[in-house]
């Protein structure tokens, strides 16, 4: 492992930030209504200056109110899933770990579905109601990781195959419960099938945007504080302990923070696969496996990947849309097989 220099971290991040910027501009330009780059720039500036009256056209409002929030949502969800995937991979010392594969996304989805079913029956103040779904999802995610973690342990040691099989089986079990709930809870939950496939098209309420933004930075920040410990954990839990890592604490921090990230992502966008699995892989190949650079680059990479996937999802069959989860699987599965065959996975 090369020593970390701030300069290298900065260079890598600016490169990825530049790519993200280009992708976002392209994503802003593509869509149902036409918009020029010049008009786009002017509109963005007038919105930043709170002069919404000065927008270039009616279409400017569409781009600002619908397209831009959706792209921002894709950025945060993509970064969350990717950072959560990186954390799980480090925590479980398994390159195949990811919220989707381990069934954690299904657990979060089940938590969200339960929260949505309970919502009309609870007399809660509005601000709590907004938090209910993300909270349910995070709780579902945390419970699932705990279950998968205990399933994956054998005689006190983590067994990779058992862990992954345990995750896959837990995931299908939880999906079955979701199916049961959706079938019995009445017809109005049927539309959730689309949401379960992964979907970024629903505009978020203002308050939820704050929850998502603050939650992401808090959780990702918490994980980043453990970055160098995660590096040591790669050589094994016992070895890390001998090197002075408080394995228990690191595990707890990463476990909770990654659950929160997964829960937030799933509660606003359903279960989107492959981002948390693939992006950390690609970033490891490109920039090495030092978590101090891997975590931020994975965040950028996840954002880029999901913005791209969502732009395709909303444009390839316009005016209809595809669920973005279908898009990530379509692109992700072949890429994953390629990486697997190359022997790098």
């Amino acid at each position: 492992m090369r020593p970390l220099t701030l300069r290298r971290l900065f260079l890598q991040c600016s490169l990825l930030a530049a790519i993200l910027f280009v992708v976002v501009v392209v994503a802003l330009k593509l869509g149902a209504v036409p918009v020029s780059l010049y008009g786009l720039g002017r509109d963005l500036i007038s919105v930043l200056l709170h002069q919404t009256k000065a927008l270039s056209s009616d279409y400017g409002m569409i781009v600002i109110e619908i397209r831009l929030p959706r792209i921002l949502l894709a950025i945060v969800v993509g970064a969350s899933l990717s950072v959560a995937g990186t954390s799980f991979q480090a925590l479980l010392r398994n390159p195949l770990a990811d919220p989707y594969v381990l069934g954690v996304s299904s657990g979060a989805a089940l938590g969200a579905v339960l929260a949505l079913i309970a919502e009309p029956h609870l007399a809660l103040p509005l601000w709590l109601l907004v938090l209910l779904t993300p909270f349910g999802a995070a709780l579902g995610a945390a419970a699932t990781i705990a279950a998968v973690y205990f399933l994956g342990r054998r005689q006190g040691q983590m067994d990779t195959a058992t862990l992954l099989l345990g995750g896959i089986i837990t995931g299908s079990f939880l999906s079955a419960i979701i199916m049961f709930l959706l079938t019995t809870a009445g017809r109005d939950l049927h539309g959730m099938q689309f949401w379960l496939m992964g979907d970024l098209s629903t505009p978020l309420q203002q308050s939820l945007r704050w929850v998502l933004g603050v939650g992401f930075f808090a959780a990702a920040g918490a994980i980043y504080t453990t970055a160098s410990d995660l590096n040591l954990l790669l050589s094994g839990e016992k070895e890390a302990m001998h090197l002075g890592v408080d394995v228990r604490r690191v595990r707890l921090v990463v476990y909770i923070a990654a659950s929160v990230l997964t829960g937030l992502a799933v509660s606003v966008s359903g279960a989107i696969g492959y981002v948390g699995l693939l992006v950390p892989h690609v970033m490891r190949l490109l920039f090495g496996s030092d978590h101090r650079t891997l975590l931020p680059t994975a965040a950028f990479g996840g954002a880029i990947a999901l913005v791209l996937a969502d732009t395709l999802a909303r444009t390839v069959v316009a005016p209809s849309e595809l669920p973005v989860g279908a898009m990530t699987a379509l692109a992700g599965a072949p890429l994953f097989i390629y990486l697997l065959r190359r022997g790098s996975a």
Partner: protein
Amino acid sequence: MALAAFAVPFSGAALCHSQAAAQPLQAPPSYRQITDEIGRTIRVPQPIHRIVSLAPNLTETIYALGLQDHLVGDTDYCDFPAEAQQKTKVGGAVNPSIEAIAALHPDLVLVTKNLNRLETVQALADIGIPSYATDPHTVDAIIASTSRLADLLGAPETGSVLAADLEHQISGLHDRIAALPARRVLFVVWTEPLISIGNDTFIADALRHAGAVSVIDSSQNWPQVNLEEVVRLQPEFLIFVESHYGAAPHSADALAGLPGWRLLNAVRNRRYAKISDAINRPAPRLVSAVEDLARQLHPEAFTEEPQDDKESSKPPALALSKSHVLSDPTAPSKEQPCAR
């Protein structure tokens, strides 16, 4: 005495014999060969005494035809009229229990193509239970399908009266609103994500009969639609279906506060039309939902009815859906002459 004892079994045997001899002669009329709406040729016993319906719209149609006494089973979703919920349930429309259907010994099972699966039909055929499939894509086809079904089930007179009533109602509507420009509408199936209807659905045709046209041009039946596209197209009205399954995640009124949605003029001006879920079912009751929708979209066409208008302008969705299907077609038929 011995003679009598001899005579009785003999006469019985003779009876049996004559019946057996008559059977081949009676067989052609006791079975009927027909082609259903998906092009399958099926053999149906006549008359039909025991019917199982595997779709809510078909259950409604059976009740509308007054044949409910022959309905021995239906699905979990068959909730209209309310009595239909008391019938023996055979499961959902997509995954009914073949065993439960077989246990009811139906003469005929009714299915509809856009809801039921071909696997169900085949599984029934394998155990010798005939099924008849309907597949209407337009309002006219729904009416035609209803009278064909009436004919098949042995109620041709009721069927033709019902069909005539429905046609009359539709042509009455046409007379009122044909001259008016069609309202450009968005039919909202679901809001998270936004799902609307495609061109080839009976709902799209029902909208046309109500003097409306969907802004969404899609060949899929239930397209997931991009919100940007809807804002660009600016529909004049949003159409919501009132569901008795509890509120959707975002009720129509909450949309005004949502980013994106609030850019729609229809949302800003609360131009919403709310109709009963009869619109979702290709059954005779659909026509009353069409009329209800037409009244909401084109109130100016329904002004010259002093006492009836007041009663049916606001709560007609509920009032009509609760009343007997056959009773409302008569209302517009009385009004129709004065409209012309």
